[in-house]
């Protein structure tokens, strides 16, 4: 019975000329945006990979110099592009692409791509995710809003029920019918997506791409199911098709356009972001504070003198210049961890509040999950920033300990390529899929709640559907 209802619904929908136009439009938009995303990914990824190789070659080829000069010369970290960013570019346009890893300083990632674009960027980027999260729900609403109310208005609902069809079966059948109609759009889009993904060069940055892509697909499907259920429920309850359409369109508008702005504004009110000048001057003040560094120097001096049983630091067979450079780094690292940690914590709290606001709109947890799985969210950015900073610190350690071990006081000391080689190439491994799911457990929970709640709403509305 359910199958028959589903088939009728599918036939009904696909025969409608409006459906065909809409379906072609949605499909065209999805595929275009995927292709554009694919091209953009390929261009940028190639540029970044090449730059990363070049910066390594420059590091190795810097000739003979003092290790501390080499540390000042440093290397660059370039943010790799994740393969799934072709589906969801997320925050990528709004975070910097390059950071200079030099001595004494944790530099910010600079050059946000959005600054190199026009103001229309702010209308939103046309990505496959945008198509799935914003346009497809609208498509679902337009296809579904009259499924119950339309039958009622034609008088066929009474006939159907007189045949002894269970309302639950009716709801399920109709949902499946709509889903099948949707599949006509989704299957080609998915195939295009898989083709695009497989046409990209292998790049190890995103471990378990396949798992991520599959999960991404699954949560999108859950989101579509939520929208189908909500639309069916409203269609069953509403007095007329017109009212159903108005209610559903208002919900779509609030969900797609209003809530994400309102939620991120609210989150920023709860956890205000400091201004750059406030942040910088507070950090510089802490960096310049000499007392901590002096204490560190003194501690290490005593330690070394004790270890080598020496009366003065000059008698210790270790060059204290290297030690003091490293202690300066350690002091800086503490300050950076404190200040950047606090700043990133503010962002994380804002983003968490944004997620929680998903109680009122399913788009919010969906956006978070979509960006998270695509590796284009703030959590991934933070993880990369952290990795780059750890790498910077490892360079400093290698350089400073080399000075401590080899440099003789009063003698000009230079090191060569053997030392530069000791610093391994910068390798970044994106966090595992499990980490993403753990990070977004609230979003997952909320999505599950939306799915369950909307299914319940659809079934209960169907069983209480108005017949007149």
């Amino acid at each position: 019975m359910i199958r028959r209802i589903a088939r009728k619904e599918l036939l009904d929908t696909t025969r409608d000329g409006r459906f065909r136009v809409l379906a072609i439009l949605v499909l065209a938009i999805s595929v275009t945006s995927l292709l554009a995303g694919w091209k953009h990914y390929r261009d940028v990824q190639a540029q970044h990979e090449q730059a990363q190789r070049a910066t390594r070659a420059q590091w190795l080829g810097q000739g003979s110099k003092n290790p501390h000069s080499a540390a000042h010369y440093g290397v660059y970290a370039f943010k790799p592009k994740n393969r799934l960013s072709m589906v969801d570019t997320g925050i990528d346009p709004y975070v910097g692409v390059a950071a200079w890893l030099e001595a004494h300083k944790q530099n910010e990632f600079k050059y946000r791509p959005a600054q190199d674009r026009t103001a229309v960027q702010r209308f939103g980027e046309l990505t496959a995710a945008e198509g799935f999260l914003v346009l497809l729900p609208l498509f679902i609403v337009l296809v579904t809003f009259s499924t119950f109310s339309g039958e009622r208005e034609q008088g066929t609902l009474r006939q159907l029920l007189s045949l002894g069809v269970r309302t639950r079966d009716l709801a399920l059948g109709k949902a499946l019918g709509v889903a099948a109609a949707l599949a006509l759009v989704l299957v080609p889009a998915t195939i295009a997506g898989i083709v695009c993904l497989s046409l990209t060069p292998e790049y190890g940055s995103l471990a378990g791409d396949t798992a991520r892509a599959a999960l991404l697909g699954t949560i999108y499907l859950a989101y579509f199911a939520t929208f189908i259920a909500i639309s069916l429920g409203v269609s069953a309850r509403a007095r007329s098709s017109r009212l159903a359409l108005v209610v559903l369109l208002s919900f779509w508008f609030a969900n797609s356009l209003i809530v994400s702005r309102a939620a991120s504004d609210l989150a920023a009110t709860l956890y205000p972001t400091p201004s750059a000048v406030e942040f910088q001057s507070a950090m510089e003040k802490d960096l310049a504070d000499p007392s901590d560094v002096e204490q560190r120097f003194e501690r290490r001096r005593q330690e070394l003198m004790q270890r080598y049983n020496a009366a003065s630091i000059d008698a210790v067979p270790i060059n204290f210049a290297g030690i003091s450079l490293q202690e300066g780094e350690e002091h800086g690292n503490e300050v950076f961890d404190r200040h950047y940690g606090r700043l990133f914590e503010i962002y994380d709290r804002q983003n968490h509040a944004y997620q929680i606001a998903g109680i009122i709109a399913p788009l919010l947890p969906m956006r978070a999950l979509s960006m998270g799985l695509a590796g284009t969210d703030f959590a991934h950015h933070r993880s990369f920033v952290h990795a780059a900073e750890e790498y910077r610190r490892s360079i400093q350690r290698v350089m400073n300990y080399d000075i401590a071990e080899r440099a003789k006081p009063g003698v000009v000391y230079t090191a060569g390529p053997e030392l530069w080689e000791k610093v391994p190439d910068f390798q970044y491994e994106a966090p595992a899929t499990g980490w993403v799911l753990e990070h977004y457990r609230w979003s997952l929970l909320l999505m599950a709640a939306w799915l369950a709640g909307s299914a319940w709403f659809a079934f209960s509305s169907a069983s209480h559907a108005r017949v007149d």
Partner: protein
Amino acid sequence: MFRRILAHEWRMLTSDATVWTLIAIFALSIGYGTLNGARWTRFQHDAISQAEREERDRLAAHQATIVAANTGTSKVSPFLDPRNPEVAGRRLAGRYAVMPPAPLAALSIGQSDLLPYYFKMTTDAKETVTAGAELENPQRLLAGRFDLAFVIIYLYPLLILAISYNLLSAEKEQGTLALVLSQPVALRTLALAKVTLRLLLFLATIGALATIALLAAGVDLGNGGVRFALWFAAVAVYGLFWFGLASAVASLGRPSATNAMTLAAIWLALVVLLPSMFNLLATTVYPVPSRVEMVQAVREASDEANGQGSVLLSKYYEDHPELAAGGAEQAMNDFNVIRVAVNAEVERRVRPVMDQYGRQLVAQQSVIDRLRFLSPAVLMQDALNDISGTGAGRHRHFMAQVSAYHETWRGYFVPLIFRKAQLSTLADIPRFRFQDEPFDRTIARVATALGGVLLPGVALFVFGLRALRRYKVA
């Protein structure tokens, strides 16, 4: 007669609860959006005064160091000596170049959350100086702000369509249209009255609420009176376009449901789809290469230039013979002097790469500038941002001044570095004074954009009024 019809329509309109619900939603959004914009403007003002305070305190501290060092009461490390023009100009004595928010910045946040509005000037390369940016959660930049411009661009047309999709069809479907027209009144007069009344209702709501919210947020309206008038005109023109669209669709005589679908589809296309398609098109046809390439180009150029420092210096002297006067020979080995020459060489070499970014962005902008006439939403975004001074136009104007200031800055410090002069005061270091864009240039841009909204709006009205001749009343 027209007034009597208006009075009648007013009675009809006020008896409809949905109208008041829509107006209430609209009023709330306007209030919230304006306050939100005002809060952001206040944040910017606070950041600017923090920067000014920081600069004042820092320069005062360094001035004190200079005095102490000159009187011999204390010693100072050569790397931290503010008397050394190289150290002062590059690290210690940086002054801020600031673009304060325009008087009515609260009306549209625009690009002001993305594009930096203050820089700390140094003798470093201009790209280094201008690479800084205001802190912001990237996810918030992605989401955009709920400001008044958002309410006007997205919500306002939707509400207009919601209130006018059944402009004539509702009365036709109720059968009252024929009754009304049995009176000596033309259909066109009736339609015009309906539209006029609704537009006035919207404009009154916007005007009153925006004024109240701005005053509540402490914005000085007297200062931006002309801008506010311009803003109100823009809102009126945009409203006119959407009412024109609604009446054109209404004049076709289709049922209310069809009208609603048609109008919603057009709204979606003009406000949501087309702008992002334009963006996709512009960024795909004229992609701006990743800045990573620029970083690498600078790096390569400076590696090479550093290797030939003294050669470059003698070349630099050829170009700037006036600087060679103060003992070129001994300067040849001076690190600071060589650095100036090396920087100049690096900048010369990477200029083609830098220019490429600017050129691609200009190309993107020119694509958008042509395409935008297809979407009143994009035109409106441009107009609102320009009126509030939060668009790309005013920012470009600011960046040009920052460039000039950078030149002035170097013009002050470089000769001092070459002369190995010692600064005795930091008070003479050039300051930045932001000159706002001439207002007539802003007005010209706004007028172009608004013309692009007004023209199709009027055309739609004319079309509607003509089509009404063939309207079947029953």
